[in-house]
């Protein structure tokens, strides 16, 4: 029943409790998707809080949202989508067994992720300087309904912070995978970690695809593209 597969390298990639490679890969894929479902629900709680307060305090949310930098937000979205493309290309290269391309695309993904986090850090700093961080020093100049404006920034920092935490975790895992890839751990036959990490990275991208319009793009018509 249990057949052991030994690839060309000496690495045995089939664990003892699986019957074959197909079962093992399927298990990883299902497991990863189930994990991503838990992530959807994890962010879901924050999205509920967002919708609840946005519908309760539209004026506060609109004016507070206008304090974000639309250009930086859109540019960062672009950066993240680029990193999703390079990640998809990395998985593609892995499936064809092209080691150099795989490493190259993974490094590109890492760099783009770094750029995103850098821009995010700049934006956080900007918020801090302008007293837009909820707490004792909060002072949102020109915010309507100033009593509820902090809620927007609570959610802004809660959501983007949780997103950035996911990016940071991804950063660490990606670095490990780059080292493994450059050492030739992955073959066209077995590159499950690259594939699973790809799913994670795209998921983080999707979260941002929703965060961008919800946090940066409320009621921009009065202020325009600035």
């Amino acid at each position: 029943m249990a057949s052991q597969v030994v690839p060309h390298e000496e690495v045995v990639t089939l664990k003892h409790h699986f019957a074959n490679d197909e079962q093992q890969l399927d298990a990883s894929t299902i497991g990863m998707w189930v994990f991503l479902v838990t992530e959807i629900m994890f962010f879901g709680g924050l999205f509920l809080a967002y919708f609840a307060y946005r519908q309760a305090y539209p004026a506060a949310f609109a004016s507070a949202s206008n304090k974000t930098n639309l250009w930086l937000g859109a540019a960062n979205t672009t950066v993240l989508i680029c990193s999703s493309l390079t990640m998809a290309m990395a998985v593609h290269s892995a499936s064809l067994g092209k080691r150099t391309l795989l490493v190259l695309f993974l490094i590109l993904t890492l760099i783009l992720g770094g750029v995103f986090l850098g821009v995010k850090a700049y934006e956080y700093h900007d918020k801090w300087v302008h007293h837009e961080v909820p707490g004792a020093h909060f002072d949102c100049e020109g915010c309507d309904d100033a009593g509820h404006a902090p809620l927007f920034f609570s959610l802004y920092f809660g959501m983007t912070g949780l997103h950035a935490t996911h990016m940071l975790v991804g950063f660490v895992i990606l670095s490990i995978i780059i080292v493994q890839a450059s050492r030739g751990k992955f073959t066209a036959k077995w590159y499950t970690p690259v594939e699973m990490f790809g799913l994670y990275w795209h998921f983080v991208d999707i979260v941002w695809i929703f965060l961008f319009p919800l946090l940066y793009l409320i009621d921009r018509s009065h202020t325009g593209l600035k």
Partner: protein
Amino acid sequence: MITAPAPVKETKNYLNAQTGLKSWLLTGDHKRIAVMYLIVVTAFFALGGVFASLIRLELATPAGDLMESNQYNKVFTMHGVLMVFFFLIPSIPATLGNFLIPLMIGAKDLAFPKINLLSWYIYMLGGVFTLYVLLTGGVDTGWTFYTPFSTSYSNGYVVAAGLGIFINGFSAILTGLNFIVTIHRMRAPGLTWFRLPLFVWAHYATSAIMILGTPVVAVTLFLLVLERGLHIGFFDPAYGGDPVLFQHLFWFYSHPAVYIMILPSMGVISEVISTFSSKKPFGYTFIAFSSVAIAVFGFLVWGHHLFVAGQSIYAGLVFSILSYVVAIPSAIKVFNWAATMYKGRVRLETPMLYALGFIGLFTVGGLTGIFLSSLGMDVHLTDTYFVVAHFHYVMVGGALLGYLAGLHFWWPKIFGRMYSQVWSKVSAALVFVGFNLTFFPQFLLGYMGMPRRYHVYPPEFQVFNVLSSAGASVLALGLILPAIYLTWSLKHGAIASANPWGATGLEWQTSSPPISENFEVTPVVTTEAYDYSTVPQEVVHVG
């Protein structure tokens, strides 16, 4: 921390395959991880029990003579936190489920053994946080952590307690994830979905709830910790927030969590009733799908915890109606169990006694749930002892009795030893009597208007409270007994055969205790589940 029991047989099994503490702490074997869970879950249960005893001791008299209000708040909070998050939720899935699911489906292990071990360590880490809270002064918010009390006014260790439960949640998520993947992809050849034991169906539904619900309470507690620790407003009206939103998020998980506790128990009961009636469960598909239905409907009713919290009356009406709907799949199960026993060859062994207790007590718990889900009635009964009695009938009468039934049923399989039949039956009787004596008077107290979470009460409530406290001591005795005779059996119990109860199911076809790889040869399933014609009818009991 743990030493393997003396070798049961000369042959190798999972208990004696390797020795030494390290071989346990670094194991990937689902059976060993289940035993490790069994030990710590029992320890947390005992600790939760200590707090329960303190509560009953204090309530024996109307005056607050044992502790101050503040201490009492901390005692019932710790009782709730320990019992809900550290006992009831992991009790059956992490111990019996972990041990049995691979065996029942003819697999060598769960899909992700390392993640399984990780979930145990995460559970322990969450436990360490909670014990830290316990030792440094406790937390007084109740296990529900309602805002704004928890974020702005409580003087307990809310942040540490919140983090403990946040961390603990991930152990349940990982267990659920592992079960779902395992049940989907690791079944033995020929084992189709409708040949699965009902225990596996119940755990599949439970895992779905763990996956879908737990992350929401995790993020809720994360926000709670942010609000309390960093004063970033989310729920507190002082920061413009809405405390009812916290309750929505909290109960979106915590109501389905009730089904995380009860569904595995129902799975156990289906197995036990069928085995000790030597009959295929009546309405197999109905029982199987009712587990899934409970998991799905369970997510639609959370608002019945918010009837008097300021929720919209229209939402309240809808939640009230939907709450009635959950009664249907629950009733389907009860009727099917009864029909399974009808004209069956019923044997009143210990697991069966617990299972019968379960059916009676769960029915009372379920029916009183209907009272509480009706909007008008609930306004009268909210936060009274009626609620306390109701959920203890479900949680103790249901979940705990199911756990005990399962533990007694599979004990010979897990450790290869039989326990004392006499003492175990005494224990089952004491638990049943003690439980009813403890909690039935609380229905009356609640109906008369005694609120929960107060340690001082008017003297006219004393009679029922004394009855309740007396019952609690009987219950405690009934629960201490198994700890003694089960532990004793590890060394001195009679050797159990592979299938001491005459049960069907793959787990009974391998040795007791099973070998590390579970089966000598991967089994091939060719028959429906619960085919008693294949089991020898002359089953001899040892012990």
